[in-house]
């Protein structure tokens, strides 16, 4: 068979593309829409892969390298899809002094993953955070559906993990 060049399929659907474009008038220039666009793509795919960066660049008339620059500035945007729920366990000073590091280690051992990884069933991603800003709950954790946990100990940590594995809770239930 002779190889044929196929058009590169687009990843960002038209509706999302339009949503990104609708943000342009709000900013002084197109480039400034990079961060909102990254957020929109991230909430759609739960990650920002290279192909999506390319397409964002195309929409905003900048280069993919410029999108990657902004994207990689934030630890928030992963390149591979996250689990259904993402949880950050804090290891900054207040939490660390109250056992944050140990809780993180405990959680990961329990789930058989390393910090930053997703469980084999794709349900939960565990990451560490540098200060969640909820030191009054130290040692604390935050899940990406908006739930705050803490102060945690081993048993409440276990309960948190079990809860999180049931899946994200819809916004209105918060």
């Amino acid at each position, binding site marked *: 068979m002779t190889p044929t060049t196929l058009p590169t399929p687009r990843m960002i659907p038209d509706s999302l593309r339009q949503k990104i474009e609708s943000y342009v008038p709000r900013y002084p220039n197109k480039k400034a829409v990079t961060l909102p666009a990254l957020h929109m793509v991230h909430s759609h795919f739960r990650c920002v892969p*290279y192909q999506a*960066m*390319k397409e964002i660049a195309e929409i905003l008339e*900048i*280069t*993919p*390298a*410029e999108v*990657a*620059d902004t994207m*990689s*500035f934030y630890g928030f945007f992963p390149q591979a899809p996250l689990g259904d729920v993402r949880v950050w366990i804090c290891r900054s000073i207040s939490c660390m002094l109250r056992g944050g590091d140990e809780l993180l280690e405990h959680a990961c051992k329990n789930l058989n993953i390393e910090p930053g990884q997703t469980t084999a069933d794709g349900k939960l991603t565990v990451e560490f955070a540098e200060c969640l800003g909820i030191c009054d709950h130290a040692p604390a954790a935050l899940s990406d559906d908006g739930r705050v946990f803490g102060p945690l100990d081993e048993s409440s940590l276990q309960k948190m993990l079990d809860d999180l594995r049931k899946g994200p809770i819809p916004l209105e239930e918060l």
Partner: protein
Amino acid sequence: MATIIIDGQSFELPEGAKFNAIQAAKHFGIDIPYYCWHPALSVVANCRMCEIEVGTKDPATGEIKMLPRLVPGCQTPARDGTVLVTESAKVLEHRKNIMELLLINHPLDCPVCDQAGECGLQDYSYEHGRAAHRFVEERNVKPKKEVSDLIVLNQDRCIMCTRCVRFTREIPGTAELHVMRRGDHGEIAIFPDQPVDNPLAGNVVDLCPVGALLDKDFLHNQRVWFLSKHDGVCTGCSTGCNISVEENAGKVWRHKPRHNPYVNDYWICDEGRYGYKAANSPTLLGGNYVLEGKDHHGVPTDRFVKRLNETLTTRILDKQSVLGILSPYLSVEEAFAAAQWLASLTNRVELALGPVPVRGEDLTFAPDKTKGRSGDTSFIVPRPFTISAEKAPNRAGVEMMLDHFGKGAVPFEKALESVASHPIVIVFGGSPDESWIEADQVAALRKAEVLVLFDTTINPLADVADFVAGIASFAEKSGTYVNRDRRLQRFEAALPPREGVWPLLDLIAIVSGDGKAPIRSQEILKAAARVVPGLAKVEDGLVPELGLNLDSKDQPIPDAGFQDDWTLANVSTV
């Protein structure tokens, strides 16, 4: 008049200058060390090397108020009443600390690093750093990667100054480089499969102050301290970029840009950068040749000249006329000497211009203060950079001679038509490209009864000419060119002429019996300026460092002489 006080001394700032503290201090001979700042790029103040003590002097009371903390000089405007302290104990201690921080993860692999000898880290370690490394933790090891076919990035040597990133965004506007991640994890990177691919790409190697971005073409070829640098002018196009031609052991190893705000600012294009290769080409003519039967025979210069003169004299006494062709690759001096010699042979002489190669269209990069910029641009004077479609360095200069000695710039094609009426054709070439002439053009010229060629390469015309004299190549001669903006610029010879070959000026002196080799191009320019109207502004055969605008007066540029420390680092040669 704006007065600035630097280390207790008052200086008058030049009119209209928008300097930062580094530029102002340098203007008065005081060096403030810097890495991330580049005069043509926006200020981001991220390396912190340039921090100094800054204050202001109250004009009414004369009281000096200093800021409590050190501030980056690159971001400090030099204004009336600005006070700078660049050598206090506090500043010196700070520089030590910054050097230590920048070197924390440095692999210290200078013995195998191309940058050694012209490295910002070496220079400042020596001047400002401390001798011992105190860091005992595990070092961060960063990868080595290719950012293009010609450029390698040794991330472990990078200091994250982001000069390279800002360059691609702000000058060519192609933005191929970016900062990937931040802080300790930061790296310079390209987007996968999108290499640094623009006509100015090589400049990122020059402006990288350390050995991170290196040119693969030069990699491990030479230690830089063995190179001798010669001020040259690029012959790749009619822009006439100012370059440093760097040579050792009879070979040119690289071209680097020299700063000229009226011409090329801090940059050169990649074509000019790698144009140095023609200087080492194996197809350069190695002597003088006479066609006997079907074969060319090499003859020593004295016999060559004797036979050439005999042939020309007999025919000219016979009232035969001459067609002289002058290549736009000749220097002003060469064109003058050649035209003068031809005119002295007979008054039956017609002069024409050699082929002027034109490729594509002029390509102008016109950075402005807003596009692609990511930091403070208040000190930048944006200057455009043009790669000319006209690929010869001196059409304008040669045309001046044609105007003066002949009937103006008769184009090559026109000249070919008139070969029939001129039994003698004398061609002065000089193009570094062996294919400068087409087969049908060769055939047209060969119709002459006597065909004489002075040229640098073995080319199709050399294959058939009756007399072929090898002459000094672009790297072996000195003189001047007139660029597209009618700026006269001087260039020095980087190499001695090849064995068995003379510079054209000397050869003409020998052939015409007029003057004694070696001929100094300055003397020829002086003579030319006396008679050629276009050169009237040249005084005593001298050309100012930044060239001479032949038509009008240059706009004064306050920072005209500012050479970025890292583009053309001064190496002490052994």
